[in-house]
């Protein structure tokens, strides 16, 4: 059976077409219209798979926009979907760390790959992809650029985890003439400390799989792994893990 998972995140909308293996996938910016983004990701992914919509047996929606579409047969939270996707890609996974655009989470899995516990950040941008985006913007860099810039630099200590306060703190540091590299390293450090704070409330059992678009950035992976003192497993295309999990659930 052909199944589809659509993960409507706050920043990007991802679709995966699954039929025993991934047949097609697509990512589009969510923008201000999550319904449109979902439909467009679905069209693109089906086109890539060479499969007509009529052939699809089930669609599961996940992510913040999961409420907004009638095409979904079921809606499942991103927590369950990320766990399912990560466990499928790496059956040894017992912990999932996901840094999304709007929230970050640590998920504990039991031996069978089922969610046994999870923790999410509070209702603010601290420790999320959004935080990184805003801070990269202050330095006039892309996310990738932020990572390369930070490599090897001595991180400056930022006291604010809040996206608003950290922004003014960085502007202050730039005005003092501090090197951009050290600030970039400090920004990554802040994210890692925040994830460390979350992870402290759940036992981190091996294998720890890192999912979400942020995991594409090797510098962030390094800093988080160093802070947590664990080896991070980053699947190929970590951004699609939630959508893949949704497609797997749709195939059940």
């Amino acid at each position, binding site marked *: 059976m052909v199944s589809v998972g659509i993960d409507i995140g706050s920043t990007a909308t991802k679709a995966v077409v699954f039929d025993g293996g991934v047949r097609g996938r697509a990512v589009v910016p969510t923008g201000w219209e999550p319904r449109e983004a979902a439909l467009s990701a679905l069209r693109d992914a089906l086109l890539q798979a060479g499969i007509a919509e009529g052939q699809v047996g089930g669609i599961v929606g996940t992510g913040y926009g999961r409420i907004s579409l009638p095409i979904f047969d079921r809606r499942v939270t991103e927590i369950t979907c990320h766990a399912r996707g990560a466990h499928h890609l790496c059956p040894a996974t017992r912990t999932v760390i996901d840094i999304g655009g709007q*929230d970050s989470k640590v998920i504990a899995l039991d031996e069978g790959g089922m*969610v046994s516990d999870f923790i999410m950040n509070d*209702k603010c941008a601290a420790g999320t992809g959004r935080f990184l985006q805003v801070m990269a913007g202050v330095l006039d860099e892309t996310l990738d650029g932020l990572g390369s810039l930070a490599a090897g630099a001595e991180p400056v200590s930022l006291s604010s985890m809040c996206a608003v306060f950290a922004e003014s703190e960085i502007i202050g540091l730039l005005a003092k003439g501090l090197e951009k590299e050290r600030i970039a390293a400090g920004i990554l450090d802040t994210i890692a400390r925040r994830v460390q704070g979350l992870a402290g409330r759940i036992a981190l059992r091996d294998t720890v799989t890192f999912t979400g678009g942020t995991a594409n950035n090797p510098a962030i992976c390094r800093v988080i792994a160093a802070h947590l003192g664990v080896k991070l497993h980053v699947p190929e295309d970590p951004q699609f893990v939630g959508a893949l999990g949704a497609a797997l659930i749709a195939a059940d």
Partner: protein
Amino acid sequence: MSLTQTEAFQRIATIRERSVIALKESKETGLKVAGTYCQYSPAELIVAAGAAAVSLCGTSQTPIPAAEKVLPRNLCPLIKSSYGFAVTDTCPFLYFADLLVAETTCDGKKKMYELLGQIKPLHLMQLPQVQNETALDSWILELKRLKERLEESFGVEITSERLRDAIRLLNEERRSLKELMDMCRLKPSPISGMELLTVLHNTGFNIDRRDNIALMDQLTAELRRRAAAGISPFTEATPRVLLSGVPIGIGSDKVVKLVEECGGSVVGFENCTGYKKLDPVDEAGDPLVAVAERYLRVPCSCMSPNPGRFELVKRLVEEFQVDGVIDLTWQGCHTFNIESHALKQFVQEQLSRPFLQIETDYSESDTEQLKVRIEAFLEILARPR
């Protein structure tokens, strides 16, 4: 016919309105009223003084901005709401109260009461923070102090006989309330958590205890009929949640609403809104000592240590066939927030049940974030164990 359309439920749903009218009339004919905020307030003494003991408002977001002109913003919403109602004079029960009875439970409350005492006559009881013999001795003295204050303020004598009568009346109300809450032991429960919360919230404002008892008994009988006929808002497969943690009420009910909107059933309230109310006073022996013993036993997180709460959670998880425990803690409530860590370990390791802590306030701003947590938690509970 839905449960909310039945006569018993309709009458319970309008208790607050009817109670305000009854209060106004009774005050004109000389009734004295004492307002309370907390499970530690010994209502028996108030009733034995021939006065009405009513709960005061403190579960709405509305007066919080007014409270924040004086109180720190990062204080728990329950304290801010209670104080806000007083400064804006928008709680009819507070308006009619001749005296407020309050206790030194947590730091936030006791310092807020210093300010509240400037607005209304307030009797503060020094509550011990430990449950042992020494604490009981000092708590008995505090009850004697309250007794004297009530006698002096209301111009009455609280005899042992009157106190025994009050104990019997309030125990009877507890019996009635327990039978109602115990209907949730059935699987599926014939009453939703939101419906039960409406009853728990409203009956606290009724000045007529016998009316409360009659209404709740009537509702329980109706629920028995429904259960026998297989009528329930839920199915056998609906995940059953025990809500632990801070007190809630109508207006601070968002977590109960979300759990049930997302497909769960709240079958029990292990908090001061629910099951903690049910512990009866011993009807034998010295009545004042019996009242003191009963109230000191309340397993609130302001006690250190607080073993009673863990025992109660264990009992309710077993007796109510609970699939998972949600611990609701208000932002700024240090005692419940800290205790949540130990409770999580206890529930996960000793009771082998999934556990979710939710830290929030009265506002609606985090509804979507809470939905993700609650839905994900229910997805865990919905799996066959």
